[in-house]
């Protein structure tokens, strides 16, 4: 069915709404997290009990109950999630064997199953609906509004929720310049990390000379622990496609690419389905909505290189070359894909575009801070009670995110630091808890929003080891083109490994600092320029820990194995010899019924003896 005009789209929307009307909707999350927790089996059981899922897409059934699978709700660690719309219930950690009970008690009899509700870990209080749960209460889900609430594989659900209305408005009521000025005045900035004003970027590409232009969606999300783009593509792919089409119309492009990591098979599959349906409905392809705007999109699966998130490397990758960045200028806006002017924005940036055109720039600009407008998604992970995908207005403080949405530090430990922006970001400490999260404030303290990774660390995290972890990541992911990134990150990693294994010196710390500055200042692309950030920021706020490692041979968090020392308490040791038998290094010796001794030279500090001693006679001493 081709929707040939703007009016026909409005009709299609009415029709879809009518068709999808229901008394109750059972929404089973099939985002990657919930699928990993077994949600497909849950869905399967619901289908068996309620009839085929296809019911949900057909005309009314007698009972007015529908079943649909959805994308991610963000609260993945509590998955599989099942939401019952119409009763305002969300169940967590639902197992296939719970489904019969849900159908029987909740759906048929309106009862609530307390066991499946969210329970606050601090006070055991129960929460029935999503909005009440502290994790969600402080959030403002705008770009994620459809995620978890619609079936991403059914374009009608998207259309029913005002989908493609923004594209219709763009094509029928606005000139390309008006669109660009609307985006500019909304204050939307690049969500991939750079924070460049989106409207201005669009303007550059529009102004660039050349008949042929391209739009690229950067979905090569590679930060460890980050999954904002994945969730959006899995949960609401049409929003990204619509945003892309609007951009294409605004800049004068007729072809686009969605560059998605191959490690996101579900995102690729759902996006492919969405493209197919959009083509079927005439919302992509030729003469879209009866205008002379044509737009063709393709998916390009990334082959697993972190550096391909860098725009010039990404372009090289699409062109079939090795993903290596080029020095800028020329910028992609002038010489991008196949040498043509190219607009390249992040998934989330495009995802925000339809709402801005639908609700207006002022609406978007009403959220956030002076220079950072709108909302931002973050992947909240680490030592917090609630981890998951969140969306908050720009300017929300770390305290609100960690202690309200995140529910505080796990096991009542002390907050130590948070690594923001992934391996390219920096770490922030207690003193920054009340810092509003926006592009400028973070830059001032040596961190960046990046694509939105937030790793919370407690007192049991060694800051030097954290820096080593991220440096290991960037060194492995360096494309190897420029000297400072290729060799510099390797040497930084070497030094960090030396420090964490107890062999570091004061000179090493000085060399590390010197390298950090050179690599940051002199690298070719963003990967190298930001690679030293975890080291620079951790040295800035936790220098005493670095010094402790090299001078006092001490790791206060107790993480670095090299500083651990195990000793046998002679009075407690019964001389059973078990420790000597389990020691993998053969470092323990002694005579039966006499206290055993650990040879510190040969000890590999694995701690197996501590765990294995039946008399708790072996202790870790510092």
């Amino acid at each position, binding site marked *: 069915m081709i929707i040939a005009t703007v009016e026909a789209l409005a009709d299609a929307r009415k029709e879809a709404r009518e068709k999808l009307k229901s008394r109750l909707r059972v929404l089973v999350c099939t985002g990657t997290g919930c699928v990993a927790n077994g949600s497909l089996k849950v869905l399967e059981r619901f289908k068996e009990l309620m009839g085929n899922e296809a019911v949900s897409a057909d005309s009314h059934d007698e009972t007015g109950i529908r079943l649909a699978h959805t994308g991610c709700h963000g609260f993945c660690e509590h998955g599989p999630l099942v939401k019952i719309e119409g009763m305002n219930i969300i169940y967590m950690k639902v197992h296939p064997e719970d489904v019969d009970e849900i159908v029987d008690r909740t759906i048929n009899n309106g009862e609530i199953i307390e066991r499946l509700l969210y329970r606050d870990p601090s006070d055991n209080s129960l929460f029935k609906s999503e909005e009440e749960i502290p994790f969600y209460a402080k959030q403002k889900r705008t770009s994620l509004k459809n995620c978890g609430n619609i079936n991403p594989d059914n374009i009608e659900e998207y259309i029913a929720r005002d989908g493609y209305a923004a594209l219709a408005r763009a094509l029928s009521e606005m000139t390309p310049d008006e669109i660009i000025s609307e985006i500019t005045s909304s204050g939307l900035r690049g969500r991939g990390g750079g924070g460049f004003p989106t409207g201005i970027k669009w303007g550059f590409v529009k102004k660039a000379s050349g008949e042929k232009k391209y739009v690229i969606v950067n979905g090569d999300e590679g930060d460890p622990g980050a999954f904002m783009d994945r969730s959006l593509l899995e949960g609401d792919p049409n929003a990204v496609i619509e945003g892309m089409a609007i951009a294409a119309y605004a800049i004068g492009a007729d072809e686009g690419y969605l560059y998605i990591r191959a490690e996101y098979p579900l995102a690729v599959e759902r996006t492919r389905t969405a493209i197919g349906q959009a083509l079927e409905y005439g919302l992509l392809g030729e003469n879209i909505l009866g205008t002379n705007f044509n737009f063709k999109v393709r998916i390009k699966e990334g082959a697993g*290189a972190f550096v391909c998130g860098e725009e010039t490397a990404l372009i090289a990758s699409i062109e079939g070359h*090795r993903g*290596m960045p*080029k*020095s800028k*200028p020329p910028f992609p806006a002038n010489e991008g894909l196949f040498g043509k002017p190219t607009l390249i924005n992040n998934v989330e940036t495009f995802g925000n575009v339809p709402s801005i055109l639908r609700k207006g720039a002022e609406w978007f600009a009403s959220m956030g801070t002076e220079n950072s407008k709108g909302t931002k998604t973050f992947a909240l992970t680490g030592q917090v009670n609630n981890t998951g995908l969140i969306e908050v207005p720009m300017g929300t403080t770390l305290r609100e995110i960690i202690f309200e949405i995140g529910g505080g530090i796990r096991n009542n430990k002390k907050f130590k630091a948070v690594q923001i922006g992934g391996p390219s970001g920096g770490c922030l400490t207690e003193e920054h808890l009340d810092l509003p999260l926006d592009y400028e404030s973070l830059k001032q303290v040596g961190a960046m929003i990046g694509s939105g990774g937030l790793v919370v660390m407690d007192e049991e995290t060694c800051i030097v080891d954290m820096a080593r972890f991220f440096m290991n990541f960037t*060194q*492995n*992911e*360096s*494309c*190897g*083109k*420029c*000297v*400072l990134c*290729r*060799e*510099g*990150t*390797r*040497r930084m990693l*070497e030094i960090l490994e030396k420090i964490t294994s107890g062999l570091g010196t004061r000179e090493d710390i000085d*060399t590390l600092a*010197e*390298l950090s*500055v*050179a*690599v940051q*200042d*002199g*690298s*070719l692309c963003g990967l190298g320029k930001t690679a030293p950030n975890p080291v620079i920021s951790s040295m800035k706020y936790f220098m005493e820990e670095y010094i402790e490692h090299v001078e006092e041979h001490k790791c206060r968090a107790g993480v670095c194995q090299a500083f651990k020392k195990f000793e046998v308490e002679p009075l407690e040791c019964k001389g059973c010899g078990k420790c000597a038998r389990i020691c993998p290094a053969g470092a323990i010796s002694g005579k039966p019924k006499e206290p055993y001794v650990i040879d510190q030279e040969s000890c590999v500090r694995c701690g197996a003896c501590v765990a294995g001693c039946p008399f708790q006679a072996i202790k870790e001493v510092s």
Partner: protein
Amino acid sequence: MPSMIINGHEVEFTDEKNILDVCRKAGFDLPTLCYQDHLSPFGACRMCVVDAGKRGLLTSCSVPPENGLEIQTSTERTRRVRKMSLELMLAAHDRECLTCPKSGTCKLQDYAERFGVDSVRFISRNKDKKEIDDHNPSIVRDPNKCILCGNCVRVCFEHQGLHILDFSKRGSNVEVGPAFGKMLNDVECIFCGQCATVCPTGAITVRPEFENVFDALYSGDKKVIFQVAPAVRVGLGELFGMKPGRNVEGKIVSALRKMGAYKVFDTNFAADLTIMEEATEFLKRLDEGKNLPLFTSCCPSWIKTAEQSYPELLPNLSSCRSPQRMFGSVAKKYFTKEEGLKPEDVFVVSVMPCSAKKFEAQREEFTTDGVRDVDAVITTNELARMIRSFGLDFLELPDEDWDSPLGESTGAAVIFGATGGVAEAALRTAYKKMTGRELENQVWKPAAPGESVREAEVDIDGTVVRIATVNGLAAARRLIDEIRRGEKEFHLVEIMACPAGCVGGAGQRANDSLELRAQRAKGLSDIDSNKTVRQSHNNESVLELYKTYLSEPNSAEAHHSLHTGYSSRRRIEEDIELSEVAEPGICVEVCVGTNCFQKGAYDTMKKLNGVLRAEGLLDVVDIKATFCFEKCGQSPNIAVNGKVIGNATCDRIQEIFDSEISPLLKTGSLNK
């Protein structure tokens, strides 16, 4: 005029393509390792960074000049970045500098000294040495000295249209080399050596042979005969600090005699002989209208390219041996007779501006009556080393004349050393043969730096001859494509692999520039202009050779001694014909990723195609080449409608067809 502020000075700029050029014009040189004026900017070495204050450090080799831009070329920041980059490169570099062929001419060595990198704080990464590739006659590649500047990768692709070298792996494990870790001899390297020319360190060098020459000179039982190629005489002087392009042939003759040469001859003699043969061959083809355009055959890298990529064009190649080969053949077969020697008594040494001539000399075809035509090939650089090691003061050497008779040559021969020269020389003789008059206006002029294709039309008494001259094989490939598509038509096409021609060969000074090459070409052009005899057919010694031994050009004797034939070197002989299937019922994907390819995926595909053809299913089953199913342990892999099947070797295809594809045909999944 727009201008920039460089170190406080206002500097105007016009068409400079980057900040680096403007800085150099203003007298502020910047170090560069990965920048070459004739390659695309790369920005990897970080040496050329300039300080633009708040805008940070700019990569001057890739950023175009901007009006009003204010930069400093040397500040604390730039120095820190340069020094640290150098220290990091040295830490990963094989620092056996004293025994490195590039010692003294290595840019990394020079910069390390210049910037005072007097110690390296990091652990050497050169404990586990990577294998050195010296398994071919022309080029030695030592990955332990590679600083990954990418110059070789780009010159191979951008100028030669090949991709012999490329980057592989990630992070600090990145390396440059041929695909699948192969050796240059096992891939389609044409040995032009441009990679060595642009290599700033000793990672890629031309394989030296001058020890063999000294051995022959010292042995006493061999008479050592030298031939010197045209481009050498305008390239050697530079290596002794002389003006580029200066003709030093007199000093070369003198130096070689002092070192014990029996005779010092000129390859130019053979160039004149080549023209006698080639012009005759050309006129015959023109007359018969067969095998046109005629492609020149002097350049061994072009010949190898034609054998590998264009076997169907081999009949269009001139059958003339290259001048080096003709010289060898004449010296061993006829000159020895004149001297009362046997061919095995003489040792023929070529002095060439070229690395591929070493490969050429070792080709099987390079023998006459079972005797090798040339025994050793040394380069301009090697000759300079020999002169220095022999203790000769080159600048003070007297000018001496070539030996007779293989030392006589004309202006037509000397221009063989630069792009366009061979075509011009052939035209001069062809014109005379067609009209009986000498060609008065010179068609050929030295090419401008970077000019890779030139076309000309000459009216010879009503016969219009269309000529193209090309340097750089990437440009040659484009031209050949145009000819094959019928967009262009020529009678004669001259191809030289190296940018600017032989004057820019890999035997000449490394890390040169297009400007330097143009000066050398100008040097050759000047020699031609100053010659009294400028046409090959007026070379008295050549005419004498015909009278005594060869009777006339293209005679049977001439064919035996001066001509040759080539055969295809294509590794994959037949193309697989894949039909486009509009609505495939079954899709078979064949992985051609690294592992599967190496384990025979290509044969699998061929076999599959054959089986389907035999079954008449080519319009039902779609065969696709694809990449990595990530099951490399069981490669080669194929997938039938998405189902991955491992160990799909050529001999299992029939079995897989029977068990996996046939059932699908029967169950009617065709109709889906």
